[in-house]
């Protein structure tokens, strides 16, 4: 099936919440090295709340599901991930208003809208050692592989997210709390990248 349905979206978000809970400690550790140590905590809490909310929205349009996700994140995720992932889901929601299913092009548009809003909100570019380093290549890979079918495209996106995340290990952080560490931020993956990688991996699992 080469489309994204509302139920698949709910599965994605529920899966992601589970994955975050499983990786909570790892995320916290990464964040401790170059931040304030609570990224795992924040994301798990936020998405657990999201999972609880969206389970009841299985039959709603995708826009509603994503918007609800955004608003939940904003109120429950304390750090920068709140507004950043919040913006992502909010802008993504706007591309899917009233739609119960999305065709591949619409899926691409959804991810692109989300990516643009993350960049606009956080004002980060590729190479600043932020979640954008994982998200941008992933969205590009998704778009480039669309004609192979959504499942394949999602798979490629997840792979690209992972290599994007890994690329941040050896670079200096230029944004966020980590940037206060300057050169000491080298040698550690950006935690936002890992949570983004997990986001794409969860997305792949629903196909």
């Amino acid at each position: 099936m080469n489309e994204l349905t509302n139920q698949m979206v709910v599965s994605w978000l529920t899966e992601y919440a589970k994955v975050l809970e499983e990786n909570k400690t790892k995320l916290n550790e990464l964040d401790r090295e170059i931040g304030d140590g609570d990224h795992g905590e924040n994301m798990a809490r936020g998405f657990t709340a999201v999972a609880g909310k969206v389970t009841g929205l299985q039959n709603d349009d995708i826009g509603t599901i994503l918007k609800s996700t955004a608003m939940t994140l904003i109120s429950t995720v304390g750090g920068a991930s709140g507004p950043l992932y919040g913006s992502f889901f909010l802008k993504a929601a706007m591309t899917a208003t009233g739609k119960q299913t999305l065709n591949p092009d619409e899926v691409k548009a959804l991810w692109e809208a989300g990516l643009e809003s993350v960049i606009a909100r956080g004002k980060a570019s590729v190479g600043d050692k932020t979640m954008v380093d994982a998200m941008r290549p992933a969205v590009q890979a998704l778009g480039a592989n669309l004609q192979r079918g959504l499942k394949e495209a999602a798979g490629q996106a997840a792979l690209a997210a992972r290599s994007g995340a890994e690329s941040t290990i050896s670079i200096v952080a230029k944004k966020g709390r980590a940037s206060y560490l300057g050169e000491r931020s080298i040698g550690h993956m950006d935690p936002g990248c890992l949570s983004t990688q997990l986001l794409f991996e969860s997305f792949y699992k629903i196909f």
Partner: protein
Amino acid sequence: MVGIVLVSHSHELAVATRFLVQSMTGSEVHIEVAAGIGEQFKELGTDAVEISNAIAKAAQDEGALVLMDMGSAILSTEMAVDFLEDSVRNKVKLCPFSFVEGAVAAGVAAKIGGSLNTVYNEAKNSLMQKENHLTPENLSLTKPVGISMDQESVVLIVPNLHGLHARPVARFVELASQFPGDVQITNLTTSQGPVSGKSMTSVMSLEVLKGHHIRISAAGGDTRGFLNKMKEEVENGLGDDLTDTETQDTADSGDADQQPIGISRGIVIDRVYQAQVHESDIPQSLAEDATSEMAVFRQAVAEVRGNLKNGKVILTPTNQKIFLAQAALLDDPEILKNVESLITGSKRNAAWAWTEVINQNIKMIENLKDPNLRQRASDLKDIKRLVLDRLGVKAEVLEIPEQGILLVDNMTPGQVTDLNRSKISGVVCLGNGPTSHSSILLRSFGFPAVIQAASVFKDKNVNGAMLIMDGSTGELILEPTREQLFDFRQRQRREEDQIRKELEGSQKAAVTLDGKLIPVMANIGTKQDALMAAENGADGVGLFRTEFMFVNRENGPTEQEQVDIFTDILRPLKDKPVVIRTLDAGGDKNIPYLNLPNEPNPFLGIRAIRLCLQNEALFQSQLRAILRISAVFKVEIMFPLIATLEELRAAKRQLIKAHETLKSENIAHQWPIKTGMMMEVPSAAILAEEFAREVDFFSIGTNDLIQYTLAADRGNTQLQQSIAKGIPSAVVRLIRLITDGAEKAGIPVAVCGETASHPELAKILLDCGVSELSMNPKSIPEVKTWIRSVRLSD
């Protein structure tokens, strides 16, 4: 009173800070707290929805200043601002300064009734006290980056009656920009600034009025010399006449004393609506390569700036000083810096980045108190459109909510071509000169139009009101009586009958009452023009403009390309004579592939025929293309802007060369081919007798001939009154020289300027001995009908 919002990761910190502030100011100062998340806000973090609600509450009265601790508190606040209603958002400012010190300073300023700007500035300066106390010997801690220890300043009182309005600001910025180091200006009276003295919008934002004290600071150069000069300039009014009691910038939307002029025939009885500018969606894509995106942007800005400075932009009827002010806006370092950071930092494409920055500035200017300064928002809108146009993005489309007549201040040519023909029955402009490009387009698209209508609509809010307009006479009747409606409906019916008869008659040749056949030809440039020409009974083409094939492209068109384009366009006019004019493009920058050098005066420089003579390969390709299609169509060729016999002879030599190369390649073409020249330069008109011996025909470009003879710009409304009425007598005399010279050599004279389409003016031309008229296709039926009603010997 301005409210304050405290946004922090820590609820306790925010509450404690509020307590601290109110211990100094009392609780009348409205302070909202949006801090912490989760149960009882005990967790560290921020919630954009909470923040948004807090801001809405605090801003209810006179707006709010929002202070944030750091990091995600800022992101959440920015998101919260997006959630606000527009009316609230406009009175909210985010404070980039320290949390506690800023809150205290802001609170005190708010308590004593400070405006939002004042409160903001007080927060800005809040760290100074602490610094001065702890590090008195190192005062540069809070100084803006770039100002060094050798900074000097001078305090002055502004004498101008209307304060620093657009013209003096432009002059100020012009002077400041010449100083190599940093220049800052502060309005001490309103505590605004310091801002960069080289940025026009920044200086305007200070809203300096008469009697205000300003401080000008400079560092990094001959500061004393510069400041002395500025002192002198400011005290002398920065270009304003200080004895004048009424120095105002001229409004863009037309002088209320000017009478409306009908410029495009048609009686319309319909509801009139104020034009709504519909912002086309700017593609919000990310730039692949920020460096090349920046280069594209800079190129676009440079082109627009160049066009504004040499007066090539026929956009709105404004006087020269306003054009310079617009060009200065393009030099504004703050604007350029902000665009640059959006492109290189946020990776936005150039159009998106530019739109965002310029919209912010427009909003800021529109919120200024001084109406003269607010007017400058329309300058910003103009340059916004110009730059977007250069970047290949259509900016603003004019629309109305219902079917009706469009009422607008001014229009750009691009906006005319985008008008929705099925919705808009007529156009009324408050400004615009009769021969400006937009007006010509309105006529050729057949929109009934009246311009210079400011006097009729002054101070009136007309949305949806009934309007009668007559595009021939310029009559405008708002909210007509029943009698007037009846009267005009009759006139309208008669006019419609007239038009129908004209169209029917247009396919036949037009002969005067005394038997003289006057060919009525079309001026064309596009396929659509050619179709309209055929439909409207053109007897041929008196002017085929070829510039479009060469401009706004990466490289020149090949010979084959040109042949294909000609063939395609001329198909509807197969058996009619067609005069093709060789390239008449200006020496400005829309032919990048020719790498033309910079000229101080491109209008009077290497353009048109001179350009072709200096670029032989280009000229040959065009001449060969024209000769090749002469095998299929009845083509004649004409050279533009000929001023000397040498130029004409050189051009003819080039034509012969093209013929010879085609002949050697056995490519069919007509030879000899009828070769003529444009008569638009006074020197050629004066020597018409000599020129007539060397060409097969003349074609008078009346617009340019009038321009060059009277040294006046046709797009300039300030000048319209003296040159718009008929054909100036000096030019009539030149026309007689042209026709006399032509008669002696036995060659015909045509007119291809807009005057040919106005019956009263055409009469003058025909009486001088002009034998052929060429005009925009829409006017042909009307002119033919008129010709059939005149006697030339009158």
